[in-house]
């Protein structure tokens, strides 16, 4: 699918490529902050540098006055780099304030990015973090003491598995191991991966394949809800205290005693088509069959009666 770039993205890219005034291609000499992110191996690399106006007393009050980048990457990576530098220069931020610029801000500045390309904006934000870290070291600012924790950017590199949330194979594998994730649902709950379009669940190299690779193909698969038939036979704590025959008989007795007389008053009747474990398949007949409230009747009258009289786990299914 061809990429759908916004006009703004295309404009920034063209300006940068032609070196028009006001663009930020290049490198600051003797930078106060330098950050790199990505590598040629993964197809995107960004070297980000900035210069600050040094505050005479408090380095925390340094203000970024110039930002530049060198980027190896696609149209949107270059446009995202341009966007990052422009946002920073125009904002007159201190390095610590600049950390608040997120990939969302970059995407907004670019007037949107195709979802497959969101990782380009992440790259800009990651390079900025690295540069701020570098600045802090040079200026003796203790970021940890300020409650700012800059994370290793390694997770953003690698094959993207979940396109909707730009989550990579190394990241997902690490999370699967760290958090002992065993099912796709667990991965989605922990990382969001596979939570939107769900296409990556069962494709080659998708979430199920990552699970199988890490835990082995014999890994516990998503547990099926307790199958109805097994309720009777296996689940020990859950077992019926009577045989399926007795159980069926009890249900018929309850029907004859409590339910049928009420239905027959309205010209209707009911047939038990089948019983599987605690699932009772019932078919309304006569006047009841065409009644708009048939579903209600089953739930409120019949299921409730059976729960009260026979077993509270009973579920009635309308046939």
């Amino acid at each position, binding site marked *: 699918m061809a990429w759908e770039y916004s006009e703004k993205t295309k404009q920034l890219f063209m300006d940068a490529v032609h070196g028009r005034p006001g663009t930020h291609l290049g490198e600051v000499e003797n930078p106060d902050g330098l950050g790199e992110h990505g590598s040629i191996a993964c197809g995107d690399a960004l070297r980000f540098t900035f210069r600050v106006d040094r505050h005479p007393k408090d380095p925390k009050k340094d203000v970024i006055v110039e930002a530049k980048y060198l980027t190896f990457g696609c149209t949107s990576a270059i446009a995202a780099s341009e966007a990052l530098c422009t946002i920073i220069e125009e904002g007159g931020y201190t390095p610590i304030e600049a950390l608040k610029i997120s990939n969302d801000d970059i995407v907004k500045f670019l007037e949107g990015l195709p979802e497959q390309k969101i990782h380009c904006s992440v790259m800009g934000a990651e390079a900025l973090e690295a540069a701020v870290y570098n600045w802090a070291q040079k200026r003796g600012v203790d970021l940890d003491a300020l409650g700012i924790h800059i994370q290793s950017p390694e997770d953003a590199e690698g094959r993207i598995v979940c396109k909707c949330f730009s989550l990579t194979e190394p990241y997902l594998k690490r999370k699967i191991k760290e958090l002992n994730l065993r099912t796709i649902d667990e991965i989605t709950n922990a990382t969001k991966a596979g939570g939107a*379009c769900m296409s990556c669940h069962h494709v*080659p190299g998708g979430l199920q394949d990552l699970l199988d690779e890490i835990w082995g193909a014999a890994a516990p*698969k*998503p547990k*099926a*809800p307790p199958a109805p038939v097994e309720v009777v036979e296996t689940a020990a704590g859950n077992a019926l205290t009577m045989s399926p025959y007795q159980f069926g008989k009890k249900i018929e007795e309850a029907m004859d005693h409590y339910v049928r007389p009420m239905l027959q008053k309205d010209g209707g009747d009911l047939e038990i088509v089948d019983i599987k474990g605690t699932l009772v398949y019932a078919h309304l007949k006569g006047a009841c069959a065409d009644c708009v409230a048939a579903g209600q009747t089953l739930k409120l009258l019949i299921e409730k009666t059976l729960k009260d009289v026979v077993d509270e786990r009973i579920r009635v299914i309308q*046939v």
Partner: protein
Amino acid sequence: MRIIYADNNATTGIAPEVYEAMIPYLTEIYFNPSSMYDSARSAANAIARARNDIARYLGAKDPKEILFTSCATESNNTAIQGTAKANPNRRHIITTSVEHPAVLEVCKDMQRNGCRVTFLPVDGNGNLDISTFIRALESDTLLVTIMHANNETGVIFPIERLSRLTKETDPSIIFHTDATQSVGKLPVDLEGDFRYVDLLSFSGHKLHAPKGIGALYIRKGTPCRPFMIGGHQEEGRRAGTENVPYIVGLAKALSLGVENQKEEDERIRNLRDRLETSLEEKIPYVQVNGKGAPRLPNTLNISCHYVEGEGMLYQLSAHGICASSGSACTSGSLEPSHVLRALKVPFTAVHGSVRFSLSRYNSDEDIDRIIEVFPQIVANLRKLSPYWDNKENKPRPDAEKMIGGQE
């Protein structure tokens, strides 16, 4: 000689509007939709529009739930093999004995690969028995695959009810329906009546799009491995460069089908009913297969006892009338129709079955012509039949006994 085409369940003619819509993508917009340049974007956009339209016509929530394939057979293969691969802990499949071979044969192959398959029987009218269906649902069941409308008889299965019973019994069981004969002819609402359906197959050439394009609806989150791998197309769920002109044609054909559904349904149903009543009146010893069941409005499957289908088709063809038969001689496999056999149609009548299937391009004149020539065709063959008493114009008294041995 004018051709009267009454074999629309086999394939349909391409609608002129569909052809028109496809032309730009067969000529100047030939680009690979995955390419980067601006021109390629119009190809990619055409696919996106088609996907949106199809999703809307079928009532699907998200266009990404529509996957383009090469035909309904591929869609069915993907649905059955893909779900079996994605759910290795379950090994039981439920289907019916009257499915199209694109489901039936795949299920038999799954059997060879270690799955258990329940082939549900049908009654003499072609209906399923609901309590037999309920009994077939097991804790090990991974997939239920049941067609919406039968290609031979037109009998419609209650997919809304079957899928609901399946999901209420166990939401992990996947429900697939082959809707090749019904999409465009019957209403399908995947967020309405069909909200319990996980997978739905159909193809273009049954609704006036060309051959070579199909689709598979996959409800979001349904575990199903791809059948074709080797590319990123369709989010990696169906590899292969997209067939842009045919995808555009499919969307156009479906839009025509849906827009004209009500009007066409009434008119085509009237044509079919008139054909059915007239033939029943004019020809002794006939039976309409599936008569006692809900049926597609366009399909008439009629059996003439003691004559052979191919002989009828041959004579119809001489009059320019195109139809098909469930007889062994016409099947390619020399096996009589498994569908009519499942309906317990006697051998004498299975071989003498003819299927007329209509479309919006059929007229009153077409029906008049069939009514005019078909009774004589049957009479001609009966004159030659060893089972027929020409003097009395009825089967010989010992006819059934003579045939009895064949069972």
